Every structure is written in structure tokens, then in C-alpha cells.
């Protein structure tokens, strides 16, 4: 536990009036309110901090206690008085966004003023539980097919169907798998963000896949067949004679599955990179020279 300078948190000095505190709190709350800063953990932390500071400083009795004992909170004797007042009911104003519980108060606050239960401070209103955010890391090949996975979120196992074609950074909502509601309110939701890493030889843009394959000079000149690995197995492809370097070929429907559109696939684009033979033998050099003369 560390001492928290609530004045510093609100950016005010010790002589601040009630009005100054109110103004400073409002200003900072508007800046860091979680509803205005979605998915910003730092803003959420800061908002809890300023709420706690306001909870103490906006109440004259608590402010007095904090000013008197705050810095020396480690000395138990001095806190005897404070401990006796654990029945503290706080200000009449409702705190926070209703999505926070007693764990949102610092240990420092709890040791000075008792727990931070929402019930003890606010009116007995039902609130929807907190939404949970989780990140699921998958490989690109994992999301080529729809499959089921079991996730453990806050100690609970959730069986989840991961639809094929889900994209990196995409968030899906699982209704009712968030935090418990307050005072019997409904449970929050679970938001799962997909972080998809790609260690395959394919690059993905939306539902299309891109890859580059090496093509030997002779096949490029004379034509032939190449076999390509795709997520769906091997594909045999005809190479036209006199294929130029960096020629692109489109394989329709051989790309990535389209999210939630069963049977629909993007395209696969293949770029041929022609490999020039090296370490030529004398015979090969001779033949290439002959070919050069013919041109």
C-alpha cells in the first residue's frame, strides 16, 4: 500500500474550496470517463483514482480525517478512530458509473475509510454487470475453419464457436458472460478480441490471400505444371509458356473463408518469381551463348 495524494490526483492544492474540488473532479471525469474512453485501461485506472480522490475530498468529514492522518496512515494507533467509523456512508452523490465495485478502491482508501461497497454508498439501484474484455491469440490457419474452443475467463470455462474467417482485431460479444450484475441486475457481456498471428507463407487482406512462389527459368519459358500448398490442400496449376517474372495468377475461391458466409471464399493471388540458374557448367554456358546468338 502506498500513500495516495488525493489533492495531486485532482490537480488542486490543500486550500481548494469545495467548489474547486467539484470543478476539478468534473473536469477530470470528463477526460477519463470510461464511456468516453472505450478500451483504454489507463483512462479507466485514472478514472477510478479521481473518483476515489473525490469520494474523500468532497466530503468535509473525510477530508478532515484525510488531512489529519493521511500521510501517517501506516501508524495503526492513529487510525483507531478511522477504523471505528467503518460504517461510513459517504456522500449522498452516487459514485462512478455503476460498473465499479469495492475492488475499485485502493487499499489505502479501504484502510482509512473502510470498504468501498457500492451498496453502502449509493442507492439500491440495479446495475448491469461489468463487461469483460479478453484477447484470444490464434494462428491464421486456426481461423480457416469454424471450430470450437474452451476459454477460461475469470475462472469459468466458456465453450466458444470461432467462426471461420474472423479477422485480426475483430471483437465479438458473448452476451451474459461478463461480471455479475449489481443488486440483481443483468450480467455484463464478454468481449473477445481476436489477435491473429500469421506464420504461414500466405499474406491476408480481408478474404484474399497472397503468396509468391519460385518458378524455374525453364518452366517459365517452356510452360509446365506447379503444385501449390493452400490451406485447403495441394492445388495443381498450369504455367503458360513464356511466363514473365512477377506474373500474378488468380485462383478464384481459393482464398480465405468469408466471415459468417458459409461456402464463400476470397481468392488466392500467386506471384511467380523466376529463379535464374547459378553456378552454370561449361556446357550450360555454351548453350546459353548459342541461345543468345539466336536472339
Amino acid at each position, binding site marked *: 500500500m502506498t500513500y495516495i495524494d488525493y489533492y495531486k490526483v485532482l490537480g488542486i492544492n490543500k486550500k481548494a474550496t469545495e467548489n474547486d474540488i467539484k470543478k476539478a473532479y*468534473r473536469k477530470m*471525469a470528463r477526460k477519463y470517463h470510461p464511456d468516453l474512453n472505450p478500451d483504454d485501461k489507463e483512462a479507466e485506472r485514472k478514472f477510478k483514482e479521481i473518483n476515489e480522490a473525490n469520494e474523500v475530498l468532497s466530503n468535509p468529514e473525510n477530508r478532515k480525517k484525510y488531512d489529519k492522518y493521511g500521510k501517517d496512515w501506516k501508524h495503526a494507533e492513529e487510525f483507531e478512530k478511522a477504523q471505528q467509523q467503518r460504517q461510513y456512508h459517504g456522500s449522498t452523490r452516487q459514485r462512478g458509473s455503476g460498473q465499479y465495485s469495492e475492488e475499485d478502491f485502493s487499499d489505502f482508501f479501504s484502510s482509512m475509510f473502510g470498504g468501498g461497497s457500492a451498496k453502502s454508498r449509493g442507492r439500491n439501484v440495479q446495475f448491469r454487470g461489468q463487461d469483460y474484455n479478453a484477447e484470444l491469440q490464434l494462428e491464421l490457419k486456426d481461423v480457416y475453419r469454424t471450430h470450437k474452443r474452451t476459454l477460461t475467463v475469470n475462472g469459468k470455462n466458456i465453450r466458444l464457436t470461432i467462426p471461420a474467417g474472423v479477422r485480426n*482485431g475483430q471483437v465479438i460479444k458473448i452476451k451474459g458472460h461478463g461480471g455479475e450484475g449489481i443488486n440483481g441486475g443483468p450480467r455484463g457481456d464478454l468481449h473477445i478480441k481476436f489477435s491473429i498471428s500469421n506464420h504461414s507463407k500466405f499474406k491476408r487482406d480481408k478474404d484474399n490471400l497472397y503468396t509468391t512462389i519460385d518458378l524455374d527459368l525453364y518452366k517459365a519459358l517452356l510452360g509446365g505444371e506447379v503444385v501449390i500448398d493452400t490451406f485447403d490442400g495441394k492445388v495443381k496449376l498450369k504455367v503458360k509458356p513464356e511466363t514473365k517474372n512477377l506474373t500474378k495468377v488468380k485462383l478464384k475461391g481459393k482464398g480465405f473463408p468469408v466471415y459468417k458466409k458459409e461456402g464463400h471464399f476470397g481468392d488466392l493471388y500467386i506471384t511467380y518469381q523466376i529463379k535464374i540458374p547459378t553456378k552454370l557448367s561449361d556446357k550450360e554456358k555454351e548453350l546459353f551463348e548459342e541461345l543468345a546468338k539466336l536472339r
Partner: protein
Amino acid sequence: MEQKDFIPIVQLCEHYRVEISFFNDLHDMGLINITTLEKTSCLHQEKIRDVEKMIRIHQELNINTEGIDAVFNLLQKIDVLQNELNMLHNRLRLYENDYK
């Protein structure tokens, strides 16, 4: 849409301790859609999540309905930009390895 999916506005006013005029203002701004069922003004339950957010912004930040309208418009823009950023980030991955 079934009738059971709608919640009477008066019940919401009581629950969240807000004036009925607050809901009317949100409706006038186009932020919510109040439906009349059997002469009772109701809100679809799907909109509750947004309404709770609007109430929090109103009560905790002292922001009026015009301000809520502006905030929601900006949040929507942030959402669009965030999606665009994700898309561009994914597209950038197409070229990243080429320079490694």
C-alpha cells in the same frame, strides 16, 4: 419484435431516477426511438445498454442531451476510425515481412 422486448419509459425513469423529459429529449435528438404500445411509451430492450451509457454521461459528467448527442457522434466516429485502423494495420502486414 415482440411486446415483451419493450420496457415502459416510466419504469425506466423510476429505475434510473431520471425525468421523463430526458427520454423525450433523447428521442427528439434521434438517439433513441420511443415506441407507443397500448398507449404506453416504451423503449426496446436492445437500446438499454446505450441508454445506460447516456444516463451515466448525463448524471456523472453533468452533460446535457445536446452534449450526449455530440459525444455519441464522436464515439461513433472513433469506432469507424478504429475499425479502419485495424483494417489498415492488417493490410500493412501484407508488406511488413518484405522489408525484414
